[in-house]
């Protein structure tokens, strides 16, 4: 049986590695920006929700429900294709990090809220008994402990953010997946393209998950170890 294709990974990589590397750089850069942003959003809004801060807590609740119950691709389309109708024209690079950051932030808000709420009441009472004010309690007790409780779920969100950068293909932002598919359109070396994509994404995701499991062990609370 002759196969309907040829396979030459070596020359594929040799010819295209610069372009693919640039795509990978963009994937990592967009993910990094979005992860930091999602962390900040999650911590701040999660705290607002956990502490039931008036107005902010409700607004955060609406934000969370909207962005968790609509597909991220619809959010990307809205930012890139719909906003120009009211005069807000964001370029593809901006939509790239903004969309995944806002999406990740919504999930992270819930992660941190659960983490903060799980901080045993006795820790917070101990803190106020020691004379810590509300903010000080939060910064010194709730955030460190709640953040570590939220670590597994928030790391999963960050990994999802990395994977969702591949969804920037429809707006032609040249991150890794888009770059690889553009090469595929010109050369039709489909098997080589997907080998590269598979290897790169799985390496990234698997090593991140493994690294996080290591860190989780170190950062876990003493009583959960």
């Amino acid at each position, binding site marked *: 049986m002759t196969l*309907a294709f040829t396979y030459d990974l070596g020359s594929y990589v040799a010819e295209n590695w610069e372009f693919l590397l640039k795509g990978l750089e963009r994937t990592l850069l967009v993910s990094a920006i979005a992860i930091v942003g999602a962390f900040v959003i999650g911590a701040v809004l999660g705290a607002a929700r956990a502490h039931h801060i008036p107005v902010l807590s409700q607004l955060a609740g609406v934000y969370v429900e909207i962005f968790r119950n609509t597909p*991220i691709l619809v959010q990307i389309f*809205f930012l890139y*294709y719909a*906003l*120009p*109708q009211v005069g807000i024209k964001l370029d593809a690079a901006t939509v790239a990090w903004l969309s995944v950051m806002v999406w990740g932030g919504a999930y992270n808000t819930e992660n941190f809220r659960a983490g903060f709420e799980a901080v045993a009441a006795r820790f917070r009472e101990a803190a106020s008994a020691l004379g810590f004010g509300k903010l000080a309690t939060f910064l010194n007790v709730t955030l460190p402990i709640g953040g570590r409780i939220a670590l597994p779920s928030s790391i999963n969100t960050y990994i999802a953010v990395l*994977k969702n950068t*591949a969804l920037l293909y429809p707006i032609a932002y040249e991150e890794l997946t888009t770059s690889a598919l553009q090469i595929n359109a010109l050369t039709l070396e*489909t098997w080589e393209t997907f080998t590269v994509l598979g290897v790169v994404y799985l390496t990234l995701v698997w090593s991140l998950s493994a690294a996080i499991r290591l860190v989780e062990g170190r950062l876990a609370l003493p009583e959960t170890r």
Partner: protein
Amino acid sequence: MPDWVEPVARYMFEVGLRGTLKIAAIAVVGSTLVGVVLGTLITIRFWPSRWLIRLYIEVWRGLPIIVTIFAVFFLLPTLGSQLDFDPFTSAAIGLTLWGSAQVAEATRGAVASIPHEQHEAASALGFGWVGRHTYVILPQALRRLIPPLVGLLIGVIQNSTLALVIGARELLSTAQQSVDRLTAPPAFGGIGEIHAIELYGAVAVVFFLICFPLSRLARFLEQRLVV
């Protein structure tokens, strides 16, 4: 209501929404069947099968779903013309691969959480491995699976929008086609007006109306079942 709304709405609902629900239905059923089986089999202490199933789970959860869908659409046909699936089916297959990995992992956790006494009692009553799992273990495990399964349904429905990139007609792609057609000048079949916000907003609203109740349901079930 302006003239353009009616045909567009009809197109988006009759073709688009139906497409979304069809893809989602196939993917959920497929994911559940395959995932429950794999998740149960992985508990067998036989390292080759364990390793293979673990590989399956980690690969399809680790890849972005869009890459999986593209691979099914572009790569499979090169292995044989019977494997040449249309955009619809390719998207459903891609979503099933991802969904089954999720369900397998959840099933593994659920089955592993059944106390050992249940296995021992069932064996004492004369059940073999298959009988034990079919009549004793899985019914209990499946109850614990319901919240994750609702979560899977939500995930599959939302990710069905990825079928757009290979040309399937689901809700988002029909919205995009409608926006593009309306924006074109009358010579090309449009009306020269941009209605992107209305149409993409409508898509967001429809997904929200479907997913929000489901996520409430999942939360409710989770609280009920965590005894």
